[in-house]
C-alpha cells in the first residue's frame, strides 16, 4: 500500500526533512537534527505535524450510545471543554488503542486516536455503538499541529487571545485564520504545550505562519526522545492488542466504577496476578538500549525485554522502557540490558525519567 501523506507533506519536502514510514504514513523523522529539535521543545517552542492522527465525533449520551463501555476513562464526570486520556480494550483486555476523549458538549465527544490504528479503531467502535449513525470520522478533513515548549504560551498569545486561561487537559474554541479551531493544552513531550485542531484546508497556512513566527519544525525523531524521557507509552511498543494495560502502567487511566469492554478480563488478571510491569531505566553509559534487547535483573538473570530505547540529551545517557518480571526489579536497582555476550549496566528509575519538564507550568 502506498504511504499516506499529511497536508503538510510538501512543506516537509521543501524543508528537506528526512521522511520515514510511520504507521502507514510518510512522516518527517527530522529536519536538520533530532537533538536540535529536541532542544527547541525542552527550551523554547517547536511545532510538530501530527495530522496523521485520527479524530472521530460521537454524538449522544455516553451511556446510551455505548461510548462509555468502549473507553476505559471515566466520562460522566468529565466537564465540557475538558479531555481525558485512556484506552479502548478488546474483550481479552488487550489494548486496541490509547486515545484522548474530548467532551465538546454535554452530548458530543471527540476521540483522538493513533494514525496507524484509525481503520481498526473505527471498525471496533462501529461494531460496539448502539446506533452507528451517531459516529463520524473527521480524520481526513482535520489537521493537527502540536505546539510544544516552555515558551509555547507566550508564542501563541498573539494568535489565540485568551490561550493563557487554558489549564492542563482542558481545551477551548478559538478564531484562527478565519475559522473556529479547537486548541487543547495537551501534548506528548512533558513540556507546556498545545495541540491545535484546524481544517485540512487551513493547516498548511497555519504551519507556515507558525514557522514564520519562529517555531522550530520538529520531527518524529525528537518526539520519540521526548516521550521516552517522560516514560510515556507509544502504541506498538508499550501497548498492543495482546498486552495488558495493567502491565503497561495504564491503571491510573482506567475507571473501575463503570462497565467497559475488557473489564472482566482485567479483573481476572488482577486476581491471578500479573507477570510483567513496565519500568524506566537509565544506562550507565552513553550506549542506548534498543527495542527487543534483553533485560537482566540485579542478579544477572533474564528478567524481560526493552520496549523503547533512545539516547537522552538531558542526561547524556541511554534511556529506555522495558517490560520486566514484576517481582525482582525495583526502582533504584541496578539492571543491565543487551544480550548474552554484551551487557550494559543501567539503573531502574521512577517515571518520568526527565523530571524538569514545564508540563504543568
Amino acid at each position, binding site marked *: 500500500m502506498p504511504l499516506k501523506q499529511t497536508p503538510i507533506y510538501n512543506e516537509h519536502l521543501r524543508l528537506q526533512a528526512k521522511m520515514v514510514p510511520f504507521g502507514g504514513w510518510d512522516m518527517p*523523522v*527530522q529536519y536538520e537534527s*533530532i537533538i536540535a529539535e529536541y532542544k527547541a521543545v525542552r527550551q523554547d517552542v517547536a511545532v510538530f505535524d501530527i495530522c496523521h492522527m485520527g479524530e472521530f465525533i460521537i454524538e449522544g449520551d455516553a451511556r446510551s450510545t455505548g461510548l462509555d463501555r468502549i473507553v476505559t476513562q471515566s466520562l460522566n464526570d468529565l466537564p465540557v471543554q475538558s479531555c481525558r486520556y485512556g484506552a479502548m480494550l478488546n474483550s481479552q483486555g488487550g489494548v486496541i488503542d490509547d486515545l484522548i476523549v474530548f467532551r465538546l458538549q454535554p452530548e458530543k465527544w471527540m476521540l483522538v486516536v493513533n494514525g496507524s490504528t484509525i481503520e481498526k479503531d473505527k471498525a471496533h467502535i462501529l461494531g460496539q455503538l448502539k446506533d452507528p449513525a451517531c459516529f463520524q470520522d473527521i480524520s481526513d478533513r482535520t489537521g493537527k499541529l502540536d505546539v510544544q515548549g516552555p515558551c509555547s504560551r507566550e508564542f501563541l498569545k498573539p494568535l489565540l487571545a485568551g490561550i493563557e486561561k487554558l489549564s492542563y487537559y482542558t481545551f477551548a474554541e478559538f478564531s484562527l485564520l478565519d475559522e473556529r479551531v479547537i486548541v487543547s493544552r495537551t501534548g506528548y513531550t512533558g513540556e507546556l504545550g498545545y495541540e491545535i485542531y484546524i481544517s485540512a484546508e487551513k493547516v498548511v497556512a497555519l504551519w507556515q505562519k507558525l514557522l514564520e513566527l519562529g517555531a522550530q519544525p520538529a520531527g518524529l*525523531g525528537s518526539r520519540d526522545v521526548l516521550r521516552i524521557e517522560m516514560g510515556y507509552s507509544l502504541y506498538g511498543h508499550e501497548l498492543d492488542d495482546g498486552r495488558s494495560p495493567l502491565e503497561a502502567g495504564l491503571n491510573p487511566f482506567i475507571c473501575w466504577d463503570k462497565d467497559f469492554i475488557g473489564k472482566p478480563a482485567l479483573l481476572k488478571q488482577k486476581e491471578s496476578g500479573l507477570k510483567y510491569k513496565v519500568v524506566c531505566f537509565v544506562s550507565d553509559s552513553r550506549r*542506548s538500549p534498543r527495542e527487543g534487547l534483553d533485560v537482566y535483573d540485579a542478579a544477572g538473570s533474564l528478567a524481560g525485554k526493552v520496549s523503547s530505547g*533512545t*539516547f537522552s540529551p538531558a542526561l547524556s545517557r541511554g534511556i529506555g522502557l522495558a517490560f520486566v518480571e514484576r517481582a525482582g526489579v525495583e526502582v533504584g536497582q541496578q539492571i543491565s540490558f543487551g544480550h548474552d555476550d554484551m551487557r550494559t549496566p543501567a539503573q531502574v528509575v521512577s517515571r518520568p525519567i526527565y523530571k524538569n519538564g514545564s508540563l504543568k507550568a
Partner: protein
Amino acid sequence: MEVMDHLYYTKEHEWVSIDDGVATVGITEYAQDALGDITFIELPDMDAEVEQFEQLASVESVKAANDVYSPLSGKVIEVNTELQDNPALLNKSCYGLGWIAKLQVAAEDEATKLMGAEEYRTYLESLE
C-alpha cells in the same frame, strides 16, 4: 555530499588515508548524514588486529546503531578517545577531528579493493 579527493572509500561509507604505512580511518559525510546525531561510539582496543572489511568500531545515533568496518587489515595503534565524550565530532568533522582509529597497515595492496574519490562519487549517485 562532500567527498575528499585524496582518500579511499568503502561501500559501507568508511574512508581511509594511507600515509607512510599508517592508515587513518573514519566515516564519510554520507554515513554521518544517514545516521543523524551520533551519541555513542565504541572504539576498538589498542593493539587489536583487524581484518579488511571486518568490524572495527560501532556507532550509535539517536535513531540506530551501526557497525564501522575496517577498510584495511592492520593493527590498531591509536584511537580517537576525544570521541567518547564528544561523539558529535563524527557529525561535525567526519573527515577531520572525527577520525576514529589509526592502523599499522598489514598489506597496502588491499587498497586496490577500495574506491577512489571519483568512483565513490559515482557510487553515491547510484544510491540516490
